[in-house]
């Protein structure tokens, strides 16, 4: 049973001014504290998520919607376990895989094949799992002999193919996506779409942040409308998306 439960989760992001990072300023402030009493710590705090209570269950295909800065990406990071909530609890069961930046950690000097391995390890695959899948991944990229050349000789389209192929080979119970991944030319696009659907069907829970109505309608059965760090609405996709669209056009 895969599940994620959030209970009164808050996330406060510190925005360090240049001075906030400095040990000197910190110590100087310690000295002043007695006299001035309440002193700004030099660190601005932004409440990115405010009191979220939410349960995601198996079968949920959740579309995250909301304006820029509503907290969608922060919520994905909390679900992924990257940000520990500053208040509240999170409980999760199942293997969570965030695909937030699929090109993360690619090494320019390594060959395509070596990069497949590196990405696999970063995605949390075991060595055996990588060895089992690498031929299938290599075939999917259609890069052929290029796979034995260093990555710095690749075009941006080829890089994307490589990153996409290995990232979508992962087995996830809970899959977290920030915008749908767009890839290369039209013929590969078709293939990529099929693979993306396959990846999502293998996962038990999918959370997808997107600004595209079409994508949300195609892929999701529920929608979570975020507004200034809070949950505005969470429910069946059709209803929530319709009300969100209405609110948007009303300004």
């Amino acid at each position: 049973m895969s599940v994620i439960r959030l209970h009164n989760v808050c996330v406060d992001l510190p925005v360090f001014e240049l001075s906030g990072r400095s040990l000197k300023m910190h110590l100087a402030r310690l000295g002043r504290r007695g006299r001035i009493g309440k002193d700004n710590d030099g660190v601005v705090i932004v409440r990115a998520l405010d009191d979220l209570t939410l349960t995601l269950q198996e079968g949920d295909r959740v579309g995250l919607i909301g304006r820029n800065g509503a907290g969608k990406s922060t919520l994905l990071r909390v679900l992924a376990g990257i940000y520990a909530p500053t208040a509240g609890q999170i409980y999760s069961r199942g293997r969570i895989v965030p695909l937030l930046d699929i090109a993360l950690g690619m090494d320019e000097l390594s060959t395509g094949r070596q990069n497949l391995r590196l990405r696999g390890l970063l995605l949390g695959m075991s060595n055996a799992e990588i060895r089992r899948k690498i031929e299938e991944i290599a075939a999917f990229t259609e890069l052929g002999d290029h796979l034995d050349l260093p990555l710095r000789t690749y075009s941006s389209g080829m890089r994307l193919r490589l990153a996409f192929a290995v990232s979508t080979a992962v087995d996830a119970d809970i899959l977290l996506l920030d915008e749908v991944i767009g890839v290369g030319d039209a013929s590969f696009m078709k293939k990529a779409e099929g693979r993306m659907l396959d990846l999502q069907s293998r996962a038990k829970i999918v959370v997808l942040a997107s600004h595209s109505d079409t994508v949300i309608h195609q892929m999701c059965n529920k929608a979570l409308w975020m507004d200034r760090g809070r949950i505005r609405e969470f429910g069946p996709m059709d209803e929530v998306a319709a009300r969100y669209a209405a609110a948007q056009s009303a300004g």
Partner: protein
Amino acid sequence: MFATALRDLRSSLAAWRLWCLLGWLEIRQRYARSTLGPFWLTISMGVIVGSIGVVYGALFNQNIADYLPMMGIGLVFWGLLTSIINESCMAYINSAGYIRQTATPKLLFMLQAGWRNFLIFLHNFLIVILLLAVFGSKDWSTVSLFFPGLVLFILNALWIGQVAGIISARFRDLPQIISAMLQMAFYVTPILFQPGMLKDHRWIIDYNPFAHLLELVRGPLVGAAPDTLTWTVGIVMAVAGWLLALALTERYLKRIPYWV
């Protein structure tokens, strides 16, 4: 006690393939397409050892066969210690991209810095072998003590690195402060000079933990078994230091993604 920190340490150790690979890739990136690669470091270290050996040997009126191995081996190990500590300061800061995009264990990045510098040290170790081959050791029977000494030495470097790495992620002045302090420590640690030269001022090295750490690895190689005090200092520092590092990790591990 330290449940979060220990869990992170365990999963970091389990991901050894990842940090070994990342550490190795960094070395390769730095020396891409140079024929000698990291051996350039060995060569430059060798040149330094040779020139300091001649000048300071003459300055201090030392017998070169005694002075050169002491100083050369000291310099190689001092390089290992300071590079682990200095680069651990940047371990979390420089891995911000990974830390903010994936939920990997965190100590992995400190182990990566340690591993990278250990690999560089292995290249420099050629100098140690060369010095021992030319000048020999006063007593070869102590060489087996080198291995437990090296383990203690590295354990100590790693906890200092972890403490420095966490605090540096929050306070960005710390890397500079630490590198200045290590520079100072270099001059009060018997590397360029020998302990005997201090005469009445031996307290300078008796109270210097770095001097003891260095003796743990250098002593066995040059044929002087470290005394009980040195072993005790090494072990107590490693245990107490790791407790401190784990306590700090337990307290601040979850803040690291917010800081980097």
